[in-house]
């Protein structure tokens, strides 16, 4: 059996598992899915913006500065615990919590994207075509981001679940799949926990299978970037 067929065959499993969330109610799942989509889109958009900025700024002379920017940026983001950072953004800007989660995860993904650009632009490494035109730049960013999509989705779900479980904010907020998962864990609702676990597992698995064949040179930075 060809590898592509195998992947399709394997994809059938996540699709089946993902359906488990719908046992908890179509409306609930649809709302949670919509929020998840918003969060992931926001995070990827932020990462893409930072990635494009890095490609535009990546010159041999600026590489050291880019690396420093990433390191210091991570230090600043990581100094405050992630859940606290999300809660602070949500409280101080009155943004919905899922949006705050998307922003934080997006910034971290963007910093990784910058690091990938800085690494691949370093001397001695085969450099991708620089952003002389829009299509090339888009392809470069796409190649840098595509393998990171499963990680970003897992991080969004993980951080949101942690927020819901830790109970930093009132229980009135609603969010994506992570919020449902965290709340199920917090309440000890076994059925809901199993359903959302199966669904999130399926989603992560499906995405990983889809990006399995992602081009290698831009895939660095996806390792060990999962959420909680």
């Amino acid at each position, binding site marked *: 059996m060809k590898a592509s067929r*195998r992947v399709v065959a394997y994809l059938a*499993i996540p699709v089946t598992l993902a359906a488990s969330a719908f046992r908890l109610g179509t409306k609930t799942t649809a709302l949670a899915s919509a929020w998840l989509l918003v969060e992931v889109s926001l995070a990827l958009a932020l990462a893409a913006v930072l990635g494009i900025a890095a490609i535009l700024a990546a010159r041999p002379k600026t590489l*050291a500065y880019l*690396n*420093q920017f990433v*390191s210091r940026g*991570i*230090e600043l983001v*990581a*100094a*405050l*615990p*992630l*859940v*606290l950072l999300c*809660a*602070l953004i949500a409280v*101080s800007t009155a943004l919905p919590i899922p949006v705050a989660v998307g922003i934080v995860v997006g910034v*971290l993904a963007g910093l*990784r994207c910058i*690091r990938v650009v800085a*690494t691949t632009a*370093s001397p001695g490494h085969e450099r991708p075509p620089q952003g002389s035109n829009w299509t090339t730049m888009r392809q470069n960013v796409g190649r840098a981001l595509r393998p990171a999509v499963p990680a970003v989705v*897992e*991080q969004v*779900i*993980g*951080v949101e*679940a*942690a927020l819901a*479980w*830790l109970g*930093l904010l009132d229980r009135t907020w609603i969010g994506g799949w*992570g919020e449902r*998962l*965290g709340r*199920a*864990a917090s309440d*000890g609702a076994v059925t809901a*926990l199993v359903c959302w*676990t199966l669904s*999130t*597992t*399926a989603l*992560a*698995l499906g995405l*990983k299978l889809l990006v399995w064949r*992602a081009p*290698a*040179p831009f*895939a*660095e*930075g*996806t*390792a*060990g*970037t*999962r*959420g*909680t």
Partner: protein
Amino acid sequence: MRRLLRRLAWLIMRLFLILVLSFFVLSSTTHSQSLLGTDFSTDRLEATELPILFNSHPADLASRVNALVMRLSRERAESESQELMRLGAASLPILLPRLDALPIEARARVAWDLLPLAKRMTWRGADDVSSPAHAYAYFVEMWRERAVDYQPTVVGRWVERLAARGGGALTQTVVEFDTYALPALIGALPDVKSQTDVERARSLLNVLRRITGLDWAISAQCGINEARTTIDHWQRWWHLHALEFTTVSGPSRWSAMLTQTQFGQWTALALQHRFGTTKEHRPILEHVASAGLKSLALLLGGAAGAFAVALFKRLRSRYSHRSLTSHFSCLVFMSVPQTSIVACLALVGLNHGIAAAVVVACIAIAHLDLESIHPVDNTSALPASTTGRDISEPRHRQALPNWLFAGTSWPFILTLIFVIEQALGLQGLGRCCVDAFRQRDLHLLMALTTVTALWLLLLELVVQSYHPSQHSPIPLETFE
């Protein structure tokens, strides 16, 4: 040695930068806007009206009195009178000479408003004053008699005598100086080591309470610890309000631009009072140290377990070929969310203290780490130079960053530790963080930030010392 010192200096500078930015974010969120105006009895930064990072016009006693005189010359207001009473006798050396410049009605009115102060200071004849015009004459007369005594050295000597001997007469003398004696009184508060010190503190605190109207006393059967806590409370309050009762000039005025800010006050609080207390009056350092140790045990225990799993997997992958089905099953396992794994482990009954929590952390972090050593990890396809690894390094050195951060990023692993603590009911930093945020406790939140930032920077220092060849201060795999 020089290199180490340079690294340490750089580390301190970065810690400072992180703390400044974190403070800016946290203080904006935790600031409590009181409808009743500024609370002058508070020792909390959340309730102050100080600027966050820079104070272009630090308001000392002189500038406060000048502003009050200006306002009082225009109209009479209850709030101004109350403010004068609060500033007390400390304001008299500045205020009384200025009264001459005011219109007759205005200065008579101010003197009349100051009359309760004269009664508080037990000045003779204060009860006999019957009209505003008489009040002004009374103050001029009394000040002519006493102005020479209003010298810091004179007051300091009386306070020393009070601290040494106690007694009603000395108390009465110091009370006559009112708020002018505050710096000397706070400075004379002893470092309590014995019951004698407790008695000494008691006589000083009685005067402080009478002058300020604040009710932080030590009880009759007070122990040494209670006395220390109360003195610490007074000293923290004084730190925040000292400039309201004293005047700055020369270089002090310039330094006040930085120290008379919320961040400046917090830095002093952190260094001199060990981060102060929580809103529930618990000492922060002890609270955070106890919680931090549990979290650190989880972090290190979990990372050690994950490192063992990583080594095992590496060895296994060298000697055995894995099929696609095996890869797929590993991929399925890797896709299970950490939250679910922790929840399942908690549900099956692993909720008995720190040992069980470390086991859960080992499992969860090892699960998190699997991805970094799985064949789908494309970093293996990259040249060693791009991953920041030196291939000539011994294997255990190559694996070190994985051990330190278990192949994942610091923010996410810290979040995972918080979740584990919550699931197993452990009072670690996660619980601390949640409580602090719910209560909008700036002092505790900043202490937590300091701890997490220090961990982060120290870990980075360790990684750097093992990877001196790294161009970047932070190795790639440390955060990725």
